Every structure is written in C-alpha cells, then in structure tokens.
C-alpha cells in the first residue's frame, strides 16, 4: 500500500490485506430498497428518509419512485475508489483507504471542511447537521474486520449484490455482462473502484455519472471555501493546527487539494 499511495493518503489493514469488491448486478435488481434499509439498520440511522442521499442515508436506489415498475434500477453510494480523491484532499487525513477496499472517514478526526464532499466524483458524501462531520458508506468496514460481508449485500433478497475478493468479483461481473450482453461500470472509472456494476443498458440510461479513467479525478472545491479556510477560524483551531502540521510533513498532498488540474499521481 505504501508504494501505491506514499504519504498521500492514510492506509490501513482490517483483515488479510486482500482487496474486496461489491458487485451490483443491475440486471437482477428489483429496486426494493432492502439494501437501503439494511444500511440504516446496521448503522442505526433514522428510519426515514430513503429517497435522498444524506448523512444518515448512505445508499439510494434510483430512480426515486415508489412503485416497482421502473425498468432500470441503479445503486448510488460510495464507490470506494482505488485512488480516492476524497482522501487525497482531506486536510486532516481523516480518510483512510483500507487494503481490503473500504474508504472510511474517521469521525473522530474529520473537521467538517467539506472538501471531500466537493472532491467526490460521485457526489455521495454528506455532512451531518448535528455532528458537522462528513459521512458516507463505510463498506461496513466494522463487519469486514470480522470477516463478514457488508450488510446491504447480506440483505439483498434477489442476489443483485455480491461481495468477495476483487479478482473473483471482477471475473464474475465480466462473465455476467457477457451473458446479458451488457456493460460494466466502476471497473475503469477513476482508474478502478471497489464497486463493480453489471448494467443491461449503457450507463447514461441509468443516470450514472460519467467519470474519466484517470486516478484521483479532478475536483471542483470552490475557491471561496478554500480561501475561507485559509483566512478564517472555520473548522476550529485544533483542526487548522493539524492541517498545518500535516501540510508541513506531507507537502506533496497539497497539489491534490489546491492544483487538481495539474497532472498528478
């Protein structure tokens, strides 16, 4: 991991160091949202609402309609990028990429600066109104360290979700895509993610975002926000001191935050 990421993003190991992937097979999905409720149940989030991503609703199934007659269903949640820009821009290094796949925001370290929210190419990070921290799907890293699959995967009643070693899931997804004459998504985007989708139609039909193949996709953190952080006490003094210290010891990270248009990685 250290060769791959250097000091760019914090890394860690939960179990055996072998990368895992969630496979979402849109050809089997019935849009029942049991995965959405399961996520809430495991994380003890409020029962509602389930149609919009929020700090307490980490998965949505699109389109946001009640009936089951949509011909296509797409999962919208953290893709657990192999090269996560959210982690690269975090000034306090609160976001860890684990060897097994999960990209996790450490709630104790997050200062609520919102950079990751703007950096995420899929727009799946939300800020909690009460804790003022950024939150998103953790790929159930707490379960993974007990060698259990993510709770959404366990809940799926039609085997549209699967979980396993990355190479096995990728092979399975490719085979399935060939069988249904469909498409893959998530395998090349952002140079690979730890979610892989099997689609029966092109991604545009599902309303899925087009994300280029480059690592650490370019972000659009508003300049005003960054200036505010540099010149005001926003996010608190301890946070600022930590960010300053990290900027000094890991200066290479600053490129990702302030000059994302430059060719990096």
């Amino acid at each position, binding site marked *: 991991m250290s060769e791959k990421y250097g000091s760019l993003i914090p890394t860690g190991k939960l179990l055996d160091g072998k990368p895992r992937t969630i496979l979402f097979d849109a050809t089997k999905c019935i849009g*029942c949202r*049991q995965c959405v*409720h399961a996520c809430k*149940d495991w994380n003890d989030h409020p*029962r*509602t609402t389930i149609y919009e991503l929020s700090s307490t609703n980490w998965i949505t199934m699109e389109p946001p309609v*009640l009936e*089951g007659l949509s011909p296509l269903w797409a999962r919208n949640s953290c893709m657990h990028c192999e090269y996560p820009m959210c982690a690269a821009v975090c000034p306090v290094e609160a976001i860890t990429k684990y060897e097994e796949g999960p990209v996790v925001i450490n709630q104790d370290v997050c200062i609520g600066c919102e950079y990751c929210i703007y950096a995420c190419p899929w727009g799946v990070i939300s800020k909690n109104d009460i804790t003022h921290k950024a939150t998103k799907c953790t790929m159930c890293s707490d379960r993974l360290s007990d060698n259990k699959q993510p709770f959404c995967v366990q809940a799926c*009643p039609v085997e549209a979700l699967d979980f396993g070693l990355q190479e096995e899931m990728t092979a399975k997804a490719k085979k399935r895509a060939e069988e249904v004459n469909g498409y893959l998504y998530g395998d090349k985007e952002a140079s690979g993610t730890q979610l892989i989708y099997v689609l029966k139609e092109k991604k545009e039909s599902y309303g899925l975002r087009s994300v280029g193949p480059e690592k650490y996709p370019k972000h659009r953190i508003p300049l005003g926000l960054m200036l505010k952080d540099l010149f005001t006490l926003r996010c608190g003094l301890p946070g600022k001191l930590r960010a300053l210290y990290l900027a000094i010891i890991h200066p290479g990270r600053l490129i990702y935050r302030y000059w994302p248009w430059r060719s990096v990685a």
Partner: protein
Amino acid sequence: MSNASELFPQRRATRLPGGYMGQLLRVDLTTGSMRDENLPEEPLLKKFIGGQSLASYILLRELPLDAKPYGPENKVVMMTGPITGTGFTPGGTKVTAVYLSPLTNHTLGRGAASGFWAVYLKAAGYDGIIIEGAAQKPTYLFINEGRAELRDASRVWGKGATETEDLLRQEVGLKDAKVMCIGPAGENLVHAAMLCNDYNHNAAHSGGAVFGSKKLKAIVVHGTARPPLYDRERLIEAGLRWRNTLMVRHEAEKRTAGHAVDLGAAPNFNFRSTVIEESHIEGFDKNRVTLRPCFQCQRLCPWDVELKAGKHSGTVGHFNAGSEWLDTFYNLGVRGNDALYLAQRINDLGIECSHFSCGVGVAFEAWEKGLLDAEKTGGLKFEWGNVEVVDRLLDMAARREGYWGNLLAEGPVEVAAAIGGDAPKWVVHTKKGTPALHDWRPHFGQMIREIVASGGMKPQGGGSVNPPPDLKYREKWGPLDRDDPAGWSWSNALSEQYRQFCGVIGGCWFAQMHMKPDGIKSIVDSFNATTGWSFDIDQALEAGHRSAMLQSIFGTQRGWIAEHDWQDVGPRFLEPLPDGKHKGFTIAKWLPDMVYEYHRLMGRHEKTGRPFMDTLSRLGLEEFKEWAQLD
C-alpha cells in the same frame, strides 16, 4: 367495563421490553382529542404481547357489550408487535386491527396487513392506535414523529385507495410517509370493506367499513424512530436463521393461477367446477412483473404488474401474496388478464374480494338458471365472464348504487335471500362472512379452519399432514390421511396456535415456514432476542392459544355459540366437489364431529364454544370466568 387507566399506567413501574416503542395513541374522533397511553406493565405485556392478542384484550376490556358495529361506541384497536420493524428479521411487518365485526354483528372482526405501514407507525413512535367515536366529516389522522393531528379528508373522500395514498403523501409533503386508507367501499359501509395500505396490501374483513362509519378515511404515518432491541447481535443471528427457512417466491409464480394450483382446484362459476385451464392464465406470460417485497422480508410475496396483453393492456396492478383476487374473478367466469384488471379495481375500491365474488356468483348462477332476467337486473346481463358487467357491479357495490349495488354491499346471504327460490342453497359463506376466496373444499385442515373462524375475519390455521419439525419433541402423530378426518382437528388447532403466535409478535404468518426445520424455533428466538424474554416453543404456542381464546370469548360475550360454526355455513361450501381430482369429496360427512373435536381440543365446550375454567386458568385468563362453561 374495567377502567382503561388500570391497563395503561401513567408511569410504568416495570421494564419496557425490547421491540416496543412504549406507547399507544388513543384518538377520539367525536371530540377530536388524542392522548398517549403507556403500554401495559411487563407481566401483562408478556401475556398478551401485541398484535391480535393485545388488541383483542384491550377491546374486551373497553368495548361495551351493547356496542353496535357502526355505532360511535365501536372501537378499532390496531396493534403491531415487538418484532415489527426491527429490520433484522423477515416478516416483521404486521399490524392487526380488531373491532366488532359488521359482517356478523357479534363476533370479532380482524384484519391484518403487511407492507410498510406498521413499520412506519413504529417509526412515528407508536406500537398501536385505539380509535374511538366518530367524526362529523371526512377526516384523516396524520402521525409524524410522535405528533398526531386530525385533518380534513374531504379532498380524498370518494377516491380509490391508490389515488388516496398518492394525494395524502403529497399533502403531507413527505415522500416516505405511509398511508393506510379506505376506498369508496369503506366510505359507503360495504360490510366487507377493507383497509388498504402501501398500494398492494389490504387488511380485509370489514375494518374499512368501521373506518367508514367513523368517517376516518386514512391514517398517514411517518417518523424516524426504530424499536430498541434487547440483544441486537442475537437478533441478527436468529433473523438470518429465520431467513434461511424461507421458501422464496419467484416471478414465474406470478404467471400461474396462483394458490389454486397448490390446492388442486380453482373455484369456477360459483364453485361449480374446480378445473384449471390454460385460459385462466391467458396473457400472464406477456405481462411485465416486478417483485415488490414487504419491509426487509425476503419471502418476496407482493408484486407489481403492467398488463401487456388483453383489452386492458397498460393497466398497472399491485398485488400481494394470496391470489384470492384471481380466484374471485375465476369464480365469475373471468379469465386471464381480465381477472388481473378487475383484481386491481376491487383492491382500489377496497372491497374484500371473496364477499363480492360469493354474492355476484349467486346472482350469475340465478341468471343462468332463469331466476333473474334483464328486467330484474336493470338491463345488465349477468353472464359468466362478462367483464364489463362485473366491472360495473364493482362500482355499484362500492358506492351502494341502486338495488344491486346495495345488495352486493350487504353480502352473499342477502343476495341469495333477495333472489329467492333455490338461490340460498348456492351460497358460499361462513357465518355471513366469506372464506378467503380459494377452493378450500378438498382439504380437511383448511376447511375446518374456515368453518370455525369467527366469520368476521380471516381464520388462521389449516394444519399439516405431519407435525412441524420443530414440534416433533411433543407432537407424535402423522402422516395424516387426506381422505380420513382423524387428526385433522388437532393439526388445525395446533397450526392456529403457532400462526397466531407469529402474528401476535408482529410477524407475518406468510413468512412462517412451519414445515421447515427451525421454521418456528428461529421465530421464537428472534422474538426472545428482541424482547429479552425467554419463551420456549410451548410458551409461544400458549400465547397463540390465548389469542385464539380471546377471539372466541369476544364472540361468546355477544351471542356466538360453537354450533353456529357448522350450522351457519353456505350449503355450496359443503357440497361434494363437482369434478377434478378431488371429485366427490366433502367435509360435510364429518360434521359436526370435526367442529366439536376442534373446540374440545382448544379447551372449549363443543356446543357452546365457551372456554372451560381449567383452560382459562392455564392461559391466565381467569378474569373472563363469567364467560366460562361451568359444567
């Protein structure tokens, strides 16, 4: 009547077990007042748990003996159970409503629904609702995050269930809100009107009519709470075991004639033929079907459909597990996608399908046999399979329009009496209620279940050829012979107890796979992990038995006797089967003995239906001793 406050302590002195939100909402529609009631103390909760059992107990304590079904004094008590809405088990979806039944005027009415509504009622902070009085004008109840208010429902009065749901969700501005409502049938006091929720779920057996009599159009619920759990980890483990017992339904099943196939008989032409033909499913193979499961249940019963063939191509329908709404229209000679079209209509209007079918069936048979002509039917041709006429009669019944609309709204017994002649011999009913519309007649267990039910409700039970594997430690019998009545009364009584238990804890009996190893044990373990109690299977069955006993005590108090069970049955229901693989079979040969035996085995007097004192003592129901059989 006992003082209600004895039941609902102002301040709880005992632990609130896991799974409960801790409060009931009491709504007086006459005055518009509402108040929260604390759940009963733990010993009482442990005895009655929730669902039908706790709801019936509350009703028994509070409903005056001289109450009339449509009087403001009738109450509707709606209860979930502790496993409702935990998210960690299949089938944790049930809410049960009880009331004095307008179908019989003297027995317990009960309707139960799955879907999402019950889960969201708990999310709104309540385990149940007690509805009293009657509003002056159309009203709906909106409960959001523990705050309840009564609102004007005139905008949705007269609307079908689906549209009402959409409009009210829109009106409260919450996409996640869940709606339970009545269609026009409930508003117009069609005796068998249903409560409808979540598009494709219906609590049948006249709860809708009682809502209508109270001018209560709907209850909209929304909230973010979840029930506290005693041992979450153990619950997840037990819930997974429960899930592993499920026989998962598939899309392919939704392209068949449904439960008629399992039963080996479909009712055709008012129960005069049982044969299933290719035409029954015409067009089903072309339809677009999506499974639409209830909250966190992997059994996958409900489904949505878009008709892709036939005259009503393009119609969208929402259906649940049973398929009785298919048999409903098969019984009137309607076939294929036309039956699905009409099924969606009847659900939207909110009429219990069997009640309609058994009434129209008699009228159509009377037309065939020359007892009715166009003059008597207002020009409508009462011909088998006439979709337009059935469609028209649905509207007329739901709105009590004209002579036939009124008659059908009353019920099949009234239809037959009005036609006269031999028509009363052609009726299918049990104590004026109607069986869930399947042809149960070839099966001992199912028939004894239908016959002994209160008439105002869907019965539970049905029995099995062998005892459930989880009960083999105590049940040493089987396999039963499907042509010999021996053992079936007990098999049914036993299944009534474990099915009742499943409902009482807030679970769905469609998700209870009693014939699988761990099918009952995993449910009891889920319940224990949720609540912190340690029920064994015997105690679970006893809780189910207690619920069934409260049901009959309610009837006893109001004039029901066990003899009604076999005497007040539509003759057609007891006729030998006319054709098919079970031709000639009838349970009638074994009546009343099977009914007597069933009641004896349940601890009641075989003729009066009153519980024996020792039964009451065993079940901890001594407070009802004045209704016991003393000799």
